[in-house]
């Protein structure tokens, strides 16, 4: 696909998932990023620090779609076509996927027991040539909102590139 063809993906929705934030996933993730804070493991300590429940570690939003996306909670027509819709054609004739940049914003703490919606959109898509390789960059922003109220909790923006 040439760059003009790729441009049509900009603005497209690439995922819509309803997620229940599970306490064990938070503690397990904290262990994986070598964080031993009791706030992630002891409800009394978390509440003593002012949280309604156990809060999420800062990079947990990147992986949260893997946990608590229960089938019966998914909205009609979900899951969305996924980033595979964009990356599939790009990788059709080979190439390597790399994570170039990651950006999070936080409006408030995300805590265990919440039900949230994750909706991703392609924000940008562009091609660069570097050292004889073609790099196609795909920027996807995923907004995390409270399912009930629609309140914005935070965003996760990934710049993924395909090198070939």
């Amino acid at each position, binding site marked *: 696909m040439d760059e003009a063809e790729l441009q049509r993906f900009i603005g497209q929705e690439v995922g819509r998932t309803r997620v229940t934030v599970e306490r064990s996933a938070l503690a*397990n993730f904290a262990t994986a*990023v*070598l964080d031993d804070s009791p*706030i992630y493991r002891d409800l009394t300590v978390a509440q003593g620090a*002012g949280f309604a429940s156990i809060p999420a570690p*800062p990079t947990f939003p990147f992986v949260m779609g893997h946990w608590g996306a229960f089938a019966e909670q998914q909205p009609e027509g979900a899951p969305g076509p996924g980033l595979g819709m964009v990356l599939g054609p790009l990788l059709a004739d080979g190439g390597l996927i790399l*994570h170039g940049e990651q*950006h999070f914003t936080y409006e408030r703490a995300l805590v265990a027991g919440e039900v949230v919606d994750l909706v991703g959109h392609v924000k940008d898509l562009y091609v660069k040539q570097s050292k004889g390789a073609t790099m196609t960059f795909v920027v996807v922003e995923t907004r995390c909102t409270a399912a009930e109220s629609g309140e914005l909790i935070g965003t996760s923006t990934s710049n993924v590139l395909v090198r070939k």
Partner: protein
Amino acid sequence: MAPSSLADVAVGDVAPVVHHRLTRTDLVRYAGASGDFNPMHHDELLATAAMQPSVFGHGMFSMGLVGTALTNYLGIGVLRSFSVRFVRQTWPGEELSTSIVVTAITGAGAERLVQLEVGLHSAEGEVKVAGQATAALPAPAG
């Protein structure tokens, strides 16, 4: 101890460093906790067949380690933004260290924003990730 207010933070302050020697077990644990089972991070045979010297770390493990150092320093729940560029791969056996420095304090009123430069590097000084973070801390009383 995390600073409880802006009175405890000044431009140029450096956060306590998190040091860690990366192991294959770290990568397997991160794969399980994140759901990222790209075999380049746990399958030595496939990684070497793909011309890599060995399995290598998830970029998001590197960012997660910087996140741990940030919340160790500032407290949990105060971050407003956190961004990194993934510069180099990490390899089992490498000694990784976080670097976090306060670059600016902005805003007025009850809550002010602390800007920080953040990164992760090897013992040889190779930069693995580099970026910025912003945190909201209460202004000093009075």
